[in-house]
C-alpha cells in the first residue's frame, strides 16, 4: 500500500511548506517564550551562584535584597563575622538604575562590592576581559550585555567611572546587565541627596540652636558630617566555613542579630517563586494563547485541504477505502504539517530568536521534546474536525445524480 498522505503532501507541497513555515514561526515564538522563562530561572541561579554567598543577611522581615528593599547598617557585618561557622562576610548594595554611556543610557543593576581580593562575596567570579576593581573609587566592572567597552567612561549619578573589566551572564532577575562598582561609591549612588537638598539640610542644621551652640565648637560640623554619611547597605553576604551547616549558621544569626537570613535555597525560591512569578504567569498565558492559535491554524488548514478533496474522498470510499485509511490520511497530513512547523520553529528559535532576543533565552532539549509532543497532540486533535467532515462524505456522491 502506498502512503496516500505522503502522495498528497508531495502533490501540494507548496501549501504544506508555506503553512508549515507560518506555523513554524508561531512554534518558534512558543519555544522562545519557554526559553525566556528558563533563561530567567537560570539567570536567577547564576546571579545567586556568582555572588559567592551561602547566606544573605537582610533587614528583618523583608524579602531583600532582590525582591524587596532592605537596608541595614554597614557595620552589621562585624557582628556576623564573629559568629561561629562564618568564614567571610561582605557588604553589598543593589540598585537598578540608568547608567549613562555617552549620549545614550543603559538600564543596569549597580552592585556595590567591598574592597578585597577576587573571591570576596559579591565580586564577579570571573571576567571575560580586563581586571577586577583595584581602586576604592570610580572603577567599574560591567557585564558585556550592557555594551560597554574596556576603558570607556560611564556615568552613574553624578560620578563617572572607568570600565576596567567585563563579565558575562551577570544580569539581574529582570535581565538588566550588572555593573559592579566600589561599595562606597554605590552607597553614595543609592543614598546621596542632591546638592540643593544637602545645602538645605546644612542650612537647617546651622539655624537649629540645638546643633549650633556657641559653647560647643565642632558640634555643628559633627552633625553635618553624620547627616551626609550613608551608613547603609542592602545586605550582608556570608560565606559559611567548611564543615558548618548553612541552615544552622543562618539560625544562629537570626537568633542573635534580629535580622532575616536566607540560605541560597531560600533565596532561589524567592527569586523564582516571587520575583519572576508574574513574568512566568504572563509567559504561561502566552504559551496557552499560542497553542490555541496554532491549533486553530492547523485545524483550519487541514479542514480546507480536506474540503478540497471531498470528491476524491467520495471516490476513495466508493472504491472501498476504509474509513480508518481516510482518517489516517488526514491525521498524517496534520502531523506532517506540525512536523514541518516544529522543524522551522526549532530553527527559528535557535538561530534567530535566541541570539537577537534582548534577554537570555535558554532552549532546553527537554522543552523541545515537550514542545514536539504538544505540537503532535495539537495537530492530531485539530484534524478531528476535518476527519469528521471526511467521514460524513457519502460514497454515493461519487456517482452523482
Amino acid at each position, binding site marked *: 500500500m502506498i502512503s496516500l498522505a505522503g*502522495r498528497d503532501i508531495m502533490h501540494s507541497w507548496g501549501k504544506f511548506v508555506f503553512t508549515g513555515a507560518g506555523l513554524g514561526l508561531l512554534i518558534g515564538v512558543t519555544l522562545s517564550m519557554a526559553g525566556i522563562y528558563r533563561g530567567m530561572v537560570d539567570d536567577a541561579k547564576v546571579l545567586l551562584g556568582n555572588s559567592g554567598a551561602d547566606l544573605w543577611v537582610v533587614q528583618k522581615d523583608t524579602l531583600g535584597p532582590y525582591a524587596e528593599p532592605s537596608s541595614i547598617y554597614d557595620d552589621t557585618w562585624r557582628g556576623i563575622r564573629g559568629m561561629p561557622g562564618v568564614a567571610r562576610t561582605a557588604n553589598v548594595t543593589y540598585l537598578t538604575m540608568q547608567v549613562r554611556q555617552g549620549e545614550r543610557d543603559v538600564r543596569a543593576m549597580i552592585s556595590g562590592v567591598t574592597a578585597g581580593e577576587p573571591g570576596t562575596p559579591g565580586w564577579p567570579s570571573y571576567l571575560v576581559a580586563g581586571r577586577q576593581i583595584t581602586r576604592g573609587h570610580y572603577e567599574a566592572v560591567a557585564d558585556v550585555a550592557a555594551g560597554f567597552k574596556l576603558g570607556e567612561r560611564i556615568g552613574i549619578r553624578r560620578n563617572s567611572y572607568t570600565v576596567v573589566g567585563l563579565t558575562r551572564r551577570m544580569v539581574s532577575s529582570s535581565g538588566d546587565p550588572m555593573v559592579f562598582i566600589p561599595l562606597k561609591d554605590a552607597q553614595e549612588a543609592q543614598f546621596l541627596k542632591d546638592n540643593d537638598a544637602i545645602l538645605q539640610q546644612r542650612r537647617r542644621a546651622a539655624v537649629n540652636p540645638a546643633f549650633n551652640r556657641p559653647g560647643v565648637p565642632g558640634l555643628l560640623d559633627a552633625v553635618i558630617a553624620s547627616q551626609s554619611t550613608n551608613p547603609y547597605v542592602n545586605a550582608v553576604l556570608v560565606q559559611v566555613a567548611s564543615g558548618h551547616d548553612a541552615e544552622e549558621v543562618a539560625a544562629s544569626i537570626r537568633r542573635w542579630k534580629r535580622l532575616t537570613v536566607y540560605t541560597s535555597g531560600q533565596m532561589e525560591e524567592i527569586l523564582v517563586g516571587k520575583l519572576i512569578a508574574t513574568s512566568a504567569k504572563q509567559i504561561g498565558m502566552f504559551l496557552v494563547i499560542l497553542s490555541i492559535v496554532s491549533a486553530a491554524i492547523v485545524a483550519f488548514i487541514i479542514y480546507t485541504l480536506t474540503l478540497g478533496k471531498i470528491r476524491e474522498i467520495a*471516490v476513495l470510499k*466508493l472504491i*472501498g477505502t476504509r474509513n480508518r485509511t481516510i482518517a489516517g490520511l488526514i491525521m498524517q497530513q496534520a502531523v506532517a504539517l506540525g512536523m514541518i512547523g516544529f522543524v522551522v520553529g526549532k530553527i527559528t528559535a535557535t538561530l534567530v530568536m535566541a541570539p537577537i532576543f534582548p534577554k537570555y533565552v535558554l532552549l532546553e532539549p527537554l522543552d523541545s521534546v515537550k514542545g514536539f509532543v504538544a505540537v503532535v497532540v495539537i495537530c492530531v486533535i485539530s484534524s478531528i474536525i476535518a476527519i469528521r467532515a471526511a467521514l460524513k462524505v457519502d460514497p454515493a456522491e461519487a456517482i452523482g445524480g
Partner: protein
Amino acid sequence: MTGAGIRIEGLRKRYGSGDTAVDALKQVDMQVFPGEVVGLIGPSGSGKSTLLKCLGAVIEPTAGRMILDDEVIYDDGWKVKDLRALRRDSIGFIFQAPYLISFLDVTDNIALLPMLAGKPNAEARGQALDLLKALDVEHRAKAMPPQLSGGEQQRVAIARGLVNRPPVILADEPTAPLDSERALAVIRILNEMARRYETAIIVVTHDEKIIPTFKRIYHIRDGVTYEEAGQGLEF
C-alpha cells in the same frame, strides 16, 4: 472466470417516508450476462442514478433481490456484511467525469484498488500497467490526471473500473464529454474488455451516438424497467 453476471428481481427503492416519500424505483428487473454490455436509458428523474447506487451498494434498496455472480447480495436486506469489500472486489465504477485521484499518478490511480485489496505494490502496479497497455495509454503511465486529455482520462477510469476484475461494471454516462469518434472508441473498449474479462457492463447513457451500438437495452420510466432489443450496430 465464468460467473453468472448480475440479476435484479423486483427491485424497489423509496426515498423518505410518509407524505414526502418518493418511489424512485418501483419495479426493476434486469439481467446482464458476463461479456455483455447493455444500455440503461431513461428520461431525467426516471431512476437511473438511483439504480446505479443500489447496484453499487452505496444506498440500500427498499425491497427486491440482487444476485451477483450467483451470490445473493440483497434479498429485502443486505446479505453481505462488508459492502466496502463488495464494492472494492466485485463492482467497477466508471463515471461521466472520470473522477481520478488528483494527487496520484495514472498508474497508482489504477493500482490503488488492488493495493486496497491487499496486493503488494509491485504486483498491483504490474496489473495497472497491463491494463494501460490494453487501453493504449501506457505512455501516460507516469502522468498526473490533470495532464491527460478527456479521452485519456476516461480510458484510465475504465482501467480502474476493470483492475480488480469485478464481475460487474457500472458506467454512468461514460461518453458524455467525448466527441462521437472517441465515444465510439470507448464503447468499443468496453465491449472488448467485457469479452476479455467476462464482465457484465451496464452503461447509463443519454448519448444518441452510442445507443445504436447496444445489442440489448433496458428502458426505465418512472422507476419501471422494460427490456428491448437494440440495433447492435457494428462500428
